């Protein structure tokens, strides 16, 4: 896979790749080759040159094409992911000095925001008289939800989004990428750019589509490389339609990949390379792990790898690399420390020659002064053969402040008779007692039919 720097705009990379490549969503197919002397932005495209452009198209394929067209042309593109509350739009527009928007029929009403230019996407790529000359290094602004719900705006450019990482995925034969992510968020954008720069086609997700239909569509297009969070993958493995796909490369990112999900994927796809990646919008992609084991080798800290330097300060992972974001748009907030390292907020613990992610800095449950990361308990519960996935949280306790409780989705037999439920519960408890100190063992286990997965593909964690 070749990934080049920022001197070349995205459009030129797409034009340079040989053969016909496609973007597919549920309702449309777009041949990327048509972008040579073609545009989805119609006659309004030239008016976007040099501007700060909000990509507010609701339809993912419209946004995806607009990004190719705008790189090198707009001064700044602000990528609006689905699900941003309308109330935050005015802040985003003001902070990013947005003066134009790319919209479609499903876009939120932007009239009240007073944008001088709005360009509506055509339903397909139409001929353009000539391709625009690429002359600026476009700022790519990603909008993340942040933990408090107030969006953060993270500034990248094409170079920081695509700086080369040692190719981890099998590159033989034609590549068809698929992802459960939306490409307007970092995890999905990574896959989209990889596909574009690697000369591959990509199958996009659709929010209105069932998991079964999505898997069937991925199968129809012969997906070879497929990416999602561990929660996405658990949901997919629970679906009988999983047998419709046979990827050569299975990639996990965005959440901790525990041994249970890695083993589950190995059993389902015995021939595939199964890799989990560590990345965040701010820190960028830091590393891939392809040995099928949870965690990562401790010697990743020993030397700079692919330009990535890592260290642990106060328990949490710090990263400096060419893929680190440039800044927050709101410069009052520092993205990195004075030394250029980004604090990821992810707690790393070492066990022998292996390092493991223990959880989020802020997500700790305090049990009478003893700390528990929900994720470490979930990793144990998820190893139980009857369990598909779990969510561990704190419940208020009058005695110790909090106790650990777990919501568990069983891999089958959700409607167990109550006597059998009690047996399975006590077996899971026993399983936890054998692996964890007493205060980390759930005080209470509830069986639930499903757990909420946010639009980001991550488990929804509520404070409780």
């Amino acid at each position, binding site marked *: 896979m070749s990934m080049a720097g920022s001197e070349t705009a995205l459009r030129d990379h797409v034009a340079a790749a040989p053969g016909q490549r496609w973007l597919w969503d549920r309702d449309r197919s777009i041949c990327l080759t048509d972008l040579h002397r073609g545009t989805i932005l119609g006659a309004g495209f030239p008016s976007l040159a040099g501007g700060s452009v909000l990509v507010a198209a609701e339809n993912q394929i419209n946004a995806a094409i607009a990004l190719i067209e705008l790189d090198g042309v707009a001064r700044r593109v602000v990528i609006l992911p689905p699900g941003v509350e309308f109330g935050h739009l005015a802040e985003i527009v003001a902070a990013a000095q947005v003066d134009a928007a790319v919209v479609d029929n499903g876009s939120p009403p932007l009239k009240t925001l007073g944008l001088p230019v709005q360009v509506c996407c055509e339903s397909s790529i139409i001929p353009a008289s000539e391709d625009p000359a690429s002359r600026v290094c476009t700022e790519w602004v990603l909008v993340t939800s942040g933990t408090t719900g107030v969006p953060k705006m993270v500034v990248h450019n094409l170079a920081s989004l695509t700086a080369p990482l040692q190719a981890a995925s099998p590159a033989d034969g034609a590549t068809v990428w698929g992802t459960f992510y939306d490409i307007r968020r970092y995890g999905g954008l990574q896959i989209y750019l990889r596909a574009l720069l690697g000369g591959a086609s990509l199958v996009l997700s659709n929010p209105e589509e069932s998991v079964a239909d999505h898997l069937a569509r991925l199968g129809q297009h012969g997906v070879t490389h497929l990416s999602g969070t561990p929660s996405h993958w658990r949901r997919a493995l629970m679906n009988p339609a999983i047998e419709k796909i046979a990827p050569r490369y299975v990639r996990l990112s965005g959440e901790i990949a525990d041994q249970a999900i890695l083993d589950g994927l190995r059993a389902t796809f015995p021939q595939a390379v199964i890799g989990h990646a560590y990345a965040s919008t701010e820190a960028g992609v830091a590393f891939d792990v392809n040995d099928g084991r949870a965690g990562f080798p401790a010697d990743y800290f020993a030397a700079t790898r692919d330009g990535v330097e890592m260290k642990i300060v106060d328990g949490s992972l710090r990263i400096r690399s060419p893929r680190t974001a440039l800044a927050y748009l709101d410069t009052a907030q520092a993205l990195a420390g004075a030394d250029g390292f980004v604090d990821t907020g992810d707690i790393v613990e070492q066990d022998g020659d292996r390092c493991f992610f223990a959880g989020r800095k802020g997500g700790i449950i305090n049990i009478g002064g003893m700390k528990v990361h929900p994720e470490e308990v979930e990793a144990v519960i998820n190893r139980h053969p009857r369990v598909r996935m779990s969510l561990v949280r704190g419940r*208020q306790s009058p*005695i110790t402040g909090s106790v650990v409780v777990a919501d568990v989705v069983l891999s089958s037999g959700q409607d167990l008779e109550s006597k059998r439920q009690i047996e399975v519960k006590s077996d899971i408890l026993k399983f936890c007692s054998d692996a964890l100190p007493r*205060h980390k063992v759930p005080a209470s286990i509830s069986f639930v039919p499903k757990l909420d997965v946010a639009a980001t593909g991550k488990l929804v964690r509520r404070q409780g």
Partner: protein
Amino acid sequence: MSVKLTIMQQMEQVAREHGKILPPLKEDLVLANCGLDSLGFAVLVARLEDTLGIDPFTAAEDAIFPITLGDFVKVYEHGRQ
């Protein structure tokens, strides 16, 4: 099952899981001497919330400090009314 019996069964269960042996569960048993530590009681109260549907200690406006097992049972019986 009565509230009292539920409480006694859950106490036995938590004690077993925590590797503790309880003395005979009589009304006048002083909780501080029963062998369960604060984590054990925290787990017990969480389990009772699951089975009886209440946590009378968190729900109460004033702090409640039962001394004996009998007091403890009364807090739950009172809370269920």
